[in-house]
């Protein structure tokens, strides 16, 4: 009897703790957005944050077909856009592949046990002429008609 009560108590405490943790998480607005990325200097993503968290895979996949079959390049949901804005550069200014475990897409996917093969083919850091052009529409969509530099000195890249 007493044992059962203790167990129930423990379960209750455990539940309360889980709830509390979630509230704290929400209050702290835990984010995967990384310091050293352009996104860190911006207010919002290409859609409201909760939509992005839940629906980004659908948005990107829809975009994929529009771009590959329809040639549409003016959309804010381009994969090149995600990479350009969310990429983090280290102290030596070397951009870090976005799917790596410590980086933006990689960290959350590691936590949620999602496995992607997108970056077997897609550049995991912005690379080559045309990279900025491909991301331009996404930047426009969030009201920055230019790329925001995470680096303090604003040197061109």
């Amino acid at each position, binding site marked *: 009897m007493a044992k059962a009560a203790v167990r129930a108590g423990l379960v209750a405490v455990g539940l309360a703790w889980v709830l509390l943790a979630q509230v704290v998480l929400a209050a702290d607005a835990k984010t995967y957005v990384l310091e050293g990325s352009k996104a860190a*200097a911006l207010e919002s993503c290409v859609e409201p944050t909760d939509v992005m968290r839940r629906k980004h895979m659908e948005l990107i996949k829809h975009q*994929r077909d*529009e771009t*590959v*079959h*329809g*040639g*549409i*390049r*003016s959309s804010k949901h381009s994969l*090149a856009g995600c*990479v350009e804005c969310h990429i983090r550069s280290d102290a030596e200014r070397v951009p870090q592949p976005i799917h790596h475990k410590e980086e933006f897409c990689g960290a959350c996917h590691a936590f949620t046990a999602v496995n992607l*093969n997108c970056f*077997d*083919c*897609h*550049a995991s850091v*912005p*690379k*080559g*002429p*045309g*990279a*900025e*052009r*491909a*991301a*331009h*529409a996404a*930047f426009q969509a969030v009201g920055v*008609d*230019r*790329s*925001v*530099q995470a*680096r*303090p*000195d*604003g040197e*061109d*890249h």
Partner: protein
Amino acid sequence: MGKTTEMKDHHEPTDRSADPGLSEATRSDSAPSDSGRRAFMGVAAGVTAAVVAPGVVLHSVTAAPRSEAVTGDVRWGLLIDTAKCVDGCSACVDACDRENGLSLQSKPASASQEHWDDQKAVWIRKVKLQDNQTGRVTNLPLMCQHCEHPPCVDVCPTGASFKRADGIVMVDRHTCIGCRYCMMACPYKARSFIHEVMEEQLTRVPRGKGCVESCNLCVHRRDFGEDSTACVDACREAGHEAIVFGDLKDPESNIRKHLAEMASRQIREDLSLNTGVRYSGI
């Protein structure tokens, strides 16, 4: 004479009646006013750069990206004048390799050079033909011929091999399973398979092991409103001007004017594929 009828079918000016001035509008602002606009943007960028706070850099964008799906109002094609194609010159191939990230492939340590030359992906091959009776030698670049009736599309089991509405034949790598039926079906040997894991890809040309690919007429350039391809630019810069790019459906286009003037042929015209790439002097 399948050829004449086919040509007529698809190059008939009446094709464009459903297209009220769209192509004209795009075309007329591409040549002269474009450079003007670019110059203006240069000035504007300079001025703005002086006032934006440090920490902010402008994106430079040359042309408006496409915002509506491609339509059949245009059909992109190439005309290659083999008389101007120079033996030993590989300007078009090299430019294509750079533009489309093909130069980023590296030979696996275990493979022999000969094997690698066979296996690595190429979008353009320089081909040399010799007529054994007369000894006449012809050089030409051979790439995807962007057929109207592409055999690669017919055989593809997943629909990955497809023809875009504007006539570009390409592979949707998201649905390609790497079966290579298309490579066997192509009469031009225009397709390549990626045999090795890729690294350091360019943002504009994703590429990975296990898929087939081929010339896509610099599709990124098309979608950003540029008016030529990497091979055409390189051939011009090398002083040969052997390749003309343009809209086969626009009677006013440069390529149509050339086609109207000079005799040209399709390679393997017996197959009635109505290719978008035409050759003269063969």
